């Protein structure tokens, strides 16, 4: 059972639609969580306004830098940096203690959803495609962008995994798990690190830039989680 995709799209590109959908869904989740957790509505709305252009801008700057000034494209790590940068900027306006942390946490919860939806867009466009593969559910791309290739549906797998991580994050939050942010971050970084090996662009590379960033994030998160656990057990003893 194969999937056939022609990457020569008409006037409306499904890739752009999914990208905008990802931004809209992420913005909606962040907005909802912010208001629910006590962030003033006008601050949350300002964050929602700045989020989308900041994501695209930082994603473009990231690819510009990593390609050595040769290309401008969209990269997930850059977009993630854009989300956090918007959160940091907004939390400094009408600053109240504690709000910055809440906003950053809410951005972390929304990220896997944004990434999952955006990857579906990548699937329709044929970019970030998987390694050569002829098994079940192989994706047969045709068109100017990819040529005729048969590859592993890594984008679909990523989409499913990250949407599952988002749902898990919402469940952790509902259960008031104090390590929910750490868990979502570690799961997302680990998933991105692992699935990167199934991508064609990863061939002939030991470790990509994205994988190195994911590894660093996982290590930092684990250390922070251990510190937090130690701190709370010391407080309990006191």
């Amino acid at each position, binding site marked *: 059972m194969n999937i056939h995709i022609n990457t020569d799209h008409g006037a409306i590109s499904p890739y752009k639609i999914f990208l905008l959908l990802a931004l809209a869904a992420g913005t909606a989740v962040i907005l909802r969580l912010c208001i629910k957790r*006590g*962030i*003033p509505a006008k601050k949350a709305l300002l964050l929602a306004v700045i989020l989308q252009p*900041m994501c695209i801008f930082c994603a473009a700057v990231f690819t510009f830098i990593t390609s050595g000034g040769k290309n*401008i494209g969209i990269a997930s790590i850059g977009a993630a940096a854009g989300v956090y940068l918007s959160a940091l*900027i907004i939390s400094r*306006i009408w600053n*109240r*203690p504690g709000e910055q942390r809440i906003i950053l946490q809410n951005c972390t919860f929304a990220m896997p959803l944004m990434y999952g939806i955006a990857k579906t867009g990548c699937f329709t466009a044929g970019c970030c495609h998987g390694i050569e593969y002829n098994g079940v559910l192989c994706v047969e791309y045709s068109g100017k962008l990819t040529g005729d290739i048969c590859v592993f549906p890594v984008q679909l797998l990523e989409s499913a995994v990250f949407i599952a991580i988002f749902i898990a994050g919402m469940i952790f939050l509902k259960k008031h798990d104090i390590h*929910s942010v750490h868990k979502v971050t570690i799961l997302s970084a680990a998933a991105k690190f692992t699935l990167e090996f199934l991508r064609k662009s990863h061939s002939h590379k030991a470790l990509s830039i994205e994988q190195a960033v994911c590894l660093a994030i996982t290590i930092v998160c684990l250390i922070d989680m251990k510190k937090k656990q130690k701190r709370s057990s010391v407080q309990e003893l006191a």
Partner: protein
Amino acid sequence: MKVTFYEIQDCYYELIDNKPAIIAPAPTDKELLSKYHFIQLLDGRWVHYMNEFEFSYMKHNSNRKTVLFIFPIENHQMTVQQRKKNIALIILLIIYFLITAYFFWLVNSCVNDCENDINNFPNSCQESQE
């Protein structure tokens, strides 16, 4: 020591991440929590991180069984410094938007030039075509 924070009774004081905070009791009206700038932590508790004024008031009354916060909250005026910071950040945002707009124009130019095979953009377009 108990704290009555304006209309919210039976609050208690706690140091959270080394910041003095007032924790609201469990079933408190969400509107009241929003009115007095309480935020929800991951563990579900609603906290209000105290500013310098509130903390010094608390310290001054720490010998009492219950500390009452009764002065009007509107008296907490934004400092001149905070106002200047806000203006600086908003100006920064406007500059950022202008740079982003220029960037988008740049990207679109590159895409159009590549499609029409016009040679008026730096090397990046030509190399990506090759």
